[in-house]
């Protein structure tokens, strides 16, 4: 790789900051204490820019860019909070809430859910769109874990962690559009999966209650994310 001599300086919300060649706008924002909302992004996993919450404004352009996958350019003026961004972020959350059956009051991750806390943070106190109320099955065939697709927001974290960290690629997607579904192997019951190692990484990266440990009741499912930065750190150490 090229030496990191090409440091870029730019501004985030008016504050001067700098980035190495490999850093994204989101990375630099976090280093500088600017907390850009995200749902699909997770440190240690490939960024896919699909939740669209981390979109930021770039001075001189009307186009928004997803900060998790965008590299800063010299002199760029990044704005992470504006009435327009807030409105879009709120609307995206409303769309997510309207999509499946998110009923916080009876959810295992009530109080530990990123969708829930994000709605609180962004001031979404009601959803103006019609709830679509689709019918999704719950797969409880695995001895330790269960998946409730009614609570899935299709962020793709479980797919990525299984592929990139565990190396099993048990999970992927089927169907498209509103019918997109996270599947296990070739859409079989989780309990019968030959590739699943039952490591539980998918459960703990899941931002909502879609993936949970069995036997947990309402609000009992706290996610333990610490393993991911640890594993990533060990890997980086090993590759040196």
């Amino acid at each position, binding site marked *: 790789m090229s030496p990191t001599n090409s440091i870029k300086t730019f501004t985030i919300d008016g504050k001067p900051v700098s980035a190495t060649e490999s850093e994204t706008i989101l990375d630099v924002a976090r280093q500088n204490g600017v907390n850009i909302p995200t749902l699909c992004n997770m440190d240690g996993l490939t960024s896919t820019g699909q939740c669209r919450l981390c979109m930021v404004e770039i001075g001189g352009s009307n186009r928004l860019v997803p900060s998790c996958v965008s590299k800063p350019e010299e002199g760029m003026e990044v704005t992470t909070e504006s009435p327009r961004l807030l409105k879009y972020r709120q609307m995206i959350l409303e769309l997510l*809430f309207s999509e499946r*059956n*998110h*009923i*916080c*009051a*009876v*959810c295992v991750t*009530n*109080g530990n859910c990123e969708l*829930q*806390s994000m*709605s*609180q*943070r962004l*001031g979404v*106190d*009601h*959803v*103006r769109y*019609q*709830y679509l*109320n*689709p*019918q*999704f099955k719950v797969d409880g065939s695995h001895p330790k874990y269960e998946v409730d697709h*009614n609570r899935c927001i299709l962020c793709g974290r479980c797919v990525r962690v299984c592929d990139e960290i565990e190396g099993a690629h048990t999970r992927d997607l089927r169907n498209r559009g509103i019918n997109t579904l996270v599947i296990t192997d070739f859409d079989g019951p989780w309990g019968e999966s030959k590739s699943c190692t039952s490591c539980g990484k998918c459960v703990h990266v899941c931002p909502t209650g879609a993936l949970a440990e069995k036997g947990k009741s309402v609000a009992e499912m706290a996610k333990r994310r610490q393993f991911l930065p640890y594993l990533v750190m060990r890997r980086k150490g090993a590759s040196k």
Partner: protein
Amino acid sequence: MKKETKKDKKLRLATIWLDGCSGCHMSFLDIDERILLLAEKVDIVFSPLVDVKEFPEDVDITLIEGALGTEEDLHKLMKIRPRTKILVAFGDCAITANIPSMRNPFGTEATLNHVYLEMGADRPQIPTQGVPPLLPRALPLHNYVKVDVFIPGCPPSADTIFFALTELIEGRTPELSQMTRFGA
């Protein structure tokens, strides 16, 4: 015209529950002795807690708990809205249809059949007498009428409720996002 001050006239407060569990009202009662402070500022003109049969005219603030689950709920809401200045969706059921909406993916008929016929009751039959028909889907209030204030929570805490009411009484829009959330 003489400008009325707050001391001149108490605000008229109403509360009602539709398709809900009354939990929000229980939480309301949990404000305990603070209800005395409230009583200095408002008259409770209609509520499950008071003995008034007909929803009155000229209500300043109405707290509605519960989703719209039946035709009767909808009928009540349509009556309340024009008689109320500030309509408050009180708790998650009123805002998201919450628990009542869990029947939505399955439809009314399948839900009734399952609950009343398939669950092995002694005399399996679907009740039709003295109960209003279910709406096809349980829905939030704002799907039918304009809602002025949303107080999320299942139920919202007594502190949240008291704060929200105090703010409304003082003529302010309560900023609740730090105090409560869906499922709180």
